[in-house]
């Protein structure tokens, strides 16, 4: 990197600090005042950064097999979104919060797609002027920080569950996206990064509906696409830059990793509850000594027949106003219409739960089998 570029990078570092400071101010100091104006300030800073970077030449400007990599990336992104969208046919859809009028769409294209385009342009320029691995990691980390969602503020740290959710649904996907974008920037330049980030941003702004995925599944999908993109682009890059025999090429073909990806999806589906059973973490002491806090139990889905077979002493997994509960049935009643009502109690609680559990609250029946499948994992 020449001296001029180093000076510019220094200016950029200062601007990034201002940007992070601005975001921090928005969240921790005066949230309501800065919310609207932060958007404009952020845009202005990124426009300034983009203009600063335009004259900077990449240290290595030739990207071997760039067109092929762009096509591969586009194919993966489109297939991903087709599958993602089709999932809604099973899980239902949610309406996009973005307005659909022409003016609003243009505004969103500018604020969302435009911002991402500028961020990735600057990312490419920064990445392609580095030589040390440590610098790649450092700048990838900075870009992850810049894209993170800080809007939850300190509420993220209110409980162990919240911290885990924030880590799994925001930080992990953002790190995966950041890493793959940096890799694409290095191996194919801005065009290759855009082949990934722009269709994703366009989908976010233009799609009228989204599949009704919970945060866990959404983050698995986000991480998965980053992983697949990395595998395929790395393959394209390796066969373009290294002399290899057909056998060697075959050996590193990412198609071979498809079973591992399916295994990952299967695990994700199991954890997310798409299979007849799912793991549930016990978060309180109410079922001690049957289930200690931090234990993971396997909860089995019920149907109407299963519900009718439930008896006193069975363990029930149900939804209450305060979240999901796993307690033992101590009494079974019926309402005027013949619907079952369950009185439940935690094994470690002195009295029964105040509210009766209705049929539709029951998620899964927790048979004694779960005691056998119980894992001793300390989650919290």
């Amino acid at each position: 990197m020449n001296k001029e570029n180093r000076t510019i990078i220094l200016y950029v570092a200062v601007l990034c600090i201002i940007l992070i400071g601005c975001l921090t101010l928005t969240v921790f100091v005066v949230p309501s005042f800065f919310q609207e104006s932060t958007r404009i300030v952020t845009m202005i800073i990124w426009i300034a950064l983009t203009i600063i970077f335009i004259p900077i030449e990449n240290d290595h400007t030739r990207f071997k097999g760039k067109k092929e990599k762009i096509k591969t990336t586009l194919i993966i992104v489109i297939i991903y979104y087709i599958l993602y969208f089709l999932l809604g046919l099973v899980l239902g859809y949610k309406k996009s919060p973005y307005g659909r009028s022409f003016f609003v769409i243009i505004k969103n294209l500018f604020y969302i797609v435009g911002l991402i385009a500028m961020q990735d342009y600057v990312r490419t320029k920064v990445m392609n002027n580095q030589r040390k691995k440590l610098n790649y990691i450092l700048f990838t980390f900075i870009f992850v920080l810049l894209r993170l969602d800080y809007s939850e503020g300190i509420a993220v740290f209110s409980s162990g569950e919240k911290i885990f959710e924030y880590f799994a649904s925001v930080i992990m996907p953002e790190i995966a996206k950041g890493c793959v974008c940096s890799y694409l920037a290095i191996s194919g330049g801005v065009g290759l990064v855009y082949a990934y980030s722009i269709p994703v941003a366009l989908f976010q702004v233009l799609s009228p509906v989204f599949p009704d995925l919970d945060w866990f599944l959404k983050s698995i999908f986000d991480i998965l696409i980053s992983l697949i993109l990395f595998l395929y682009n790395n393959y394209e890059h390796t066969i373009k830059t290294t002399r290899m025999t057909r056998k060697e090429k075959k050996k590193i073909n990412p198609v071979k990793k498809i079973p591992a990806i399916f295994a990952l999806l299967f695990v994700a589906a199991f954890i997310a509850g798409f299979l007849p059973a799912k793991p549930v973490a016990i978060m309180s002491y109410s079922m001690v000594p049957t289930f200690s806090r931090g234990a993971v139990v396997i909860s089995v889905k019920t149907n109407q027949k299963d519900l009718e077979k439930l008896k006193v002493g069975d363990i029930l997994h149900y939804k209450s106003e305060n979240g999901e509960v796993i307690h033992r049935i101590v009494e079974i009643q019926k309402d005027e219409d013949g619907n079952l009502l369950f009185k439940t109690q935690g094994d470690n609680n002195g009295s029964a739960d105040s509210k009766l559990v209705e049929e539709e609250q029951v998620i899964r029946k927790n048979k004694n089998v779960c005691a056998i499948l119980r894992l001793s994992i300390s989650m919290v």
Partner: protein
Amino acid sequence: MSTRKSNKNIILLILLLVVVGMAVGYAALSQALVINGTANITAEWKIMITDIKEGQMSGAESKTSPSYTSTTATFDVNLLYPGATAQYVVTVANQGSINAKLISVDGLDSANKAAPSDITYSINAKSDDTLGSGDTKDYIITVTWNADATELTQTKSKTATITLNYEQAE
């Protein structure tokens, strides 16, 4: 190598056609799709319930304290005689950076048509009510037992799920 390149072009073309086909399919079948509420896809979009409290009560008493989560507000009220009313004030806040407007209030008509018809719900929310970034708004939900009701219905309770649908404002 050239065969591989042309294969990719063909795959890309087919996929783009599939996307166009899906867009057309969506436009034609959007009415049949199950759409549950508004997606929380962006950190900039954060409309949430921040409080619920009792308002004016006339011949009514709360069975349990009203409670709320970020997307639901719950109350359980006993109406003591015909003509009794209970009001609950639900505070909705826009904690995102996008201005929002209320596009519809769902569930009120179906709740009011359901038995017992003498118990009705109303809310002072109107379509196109705007909720700017950082703003909060109090909505009053009123439950009324019709004063002209002469007989006590068999069903003594009535549940309503009222949904406020917001969208980005211009």
